[in-house]
């Protein structure tokens, strides 16, 4: 699957776009991200799967595009 990272999340993952092995659902993805990038534990962000926000644990089909979307506050 493909991961797109935005804002401060991209700073912590070190890349704006990267591939990773398929992960079955959004909760597992959160866990994987927190373990792989410990600094993300402190950061709130939303997850979109194939351009739809995942509000509850959501299945991620193989080969999906997932986006990690933190809020911005600057004006």
């Amino acid at each position, binding site marked *: 699957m493909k991961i797109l990272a*935005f804002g401060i999340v991209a700073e912590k993952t070190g890349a704006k776009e990267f591939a990773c092995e398929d992960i079955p659902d959004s909760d597992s993805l959160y866990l994987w991200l927190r373990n792989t990038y410990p600094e993300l534990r402190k950061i*709130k962000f939303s997850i979109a799967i194939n351009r739809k*926000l995942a509000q509850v644990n959501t299945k991620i089909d193989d080969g999906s595009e997932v986006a990690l*979307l933190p*809020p911005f*506050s*600057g004006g």
Partner: protein
Amino acid sequence: MNRFERQVILQGFGTAGQGKLQKAKVLVIGAGGLGCPALLYLAAAGVGIIGIADGDIVSVSNLNRQIIYGENDVGKRKAEVASGYLQKKYSDITIESIPEFITSSNALSIIGKYDLVLDGSDNFPTRYIINDACVLLNKPLISGAIYQHEGQVAVLNVVSKNDLSANYRDIYPEPPGADEIPNCDETGVLGALPGIIGAMQAAEAIKVLSGYGTPLINKILFYDLKSPAFYETEIISNPLSKKLIPVDAAAFVQADYSIACSSVNFVNWEQALTMQQKNTGEVMLVDVRESDEQPVPEDFDYINIPFSVLQKEYHQLLLADTLLLFCQSGVRSVRAAQVLKTIFPEKIISSVKGGIMDPMSPIHHQYHET
């Protein structure tokens, strides 16, 4: 020929669209990097009444992006300068200056006077106040925000099919926690970025008001200036959103929107206990939980001054020069540190990260037993 000719002849906009703009009342909150370009386009398009709410003054470092202001405006109130500038340009619209910051006390009365709000504020507490007020008042909200070289835009809270469209809390139910924002240091930005995002906000506001095109409803759009790239995603309504928004005006005014964005220092438990052991007397550990909260620490010295009485009971802290504050999870202790910093600006005041729920807390085991 009038000054709106080129948009009136635009197919799908017409005199009807122009008429709706001229009757509209729009409030722009924050006359900064986003607010300046948005205001310029809203005024140029002929929005009938435009309110400008900003309590800030112009500083030199604003001038790379806040394009209404010039060198001679430094030190002046943004709302006054911007309203004077726009009113001088266009005599056929009304500009209202509101030289105040939006708070939970004034938000409902100010926003209530307008048809639509454009959020160009620069901090999370204000963004949540604006969102919740717009939901309570059924006002459409054009949200825009930037972070370094990226921006985000969304059209929120529009009435469609007898229902309100997604609001900010459907995307981000709760503000970032205190420890996610280590300090309020400004980050760098190229002026063109808020120019692009602010102009997009103005375009979406004009679309919502005039009925032209399809506004960015139930969607959020991201723009990365560096790549450059756009990314758009659909917002699915979040069941948490409704629970988190105050139910009515009274609850809204009472709600606490503050999150740490000040010079609060953080220590972890190991640092806190080491500091206390080395400096008995001058370093004081303070439990700011209410007196009936569990568990009660047994393994170290501390005093308990509940957050609710902090402003009355602080005399117990006079002799210490360093205060280490803890609570259940590390959020209240940040607020307590902010309160105490105003009372004791000369003391070193830190919040213990994670509170007693933190795995490093010496009473973490007690927490799990209760």
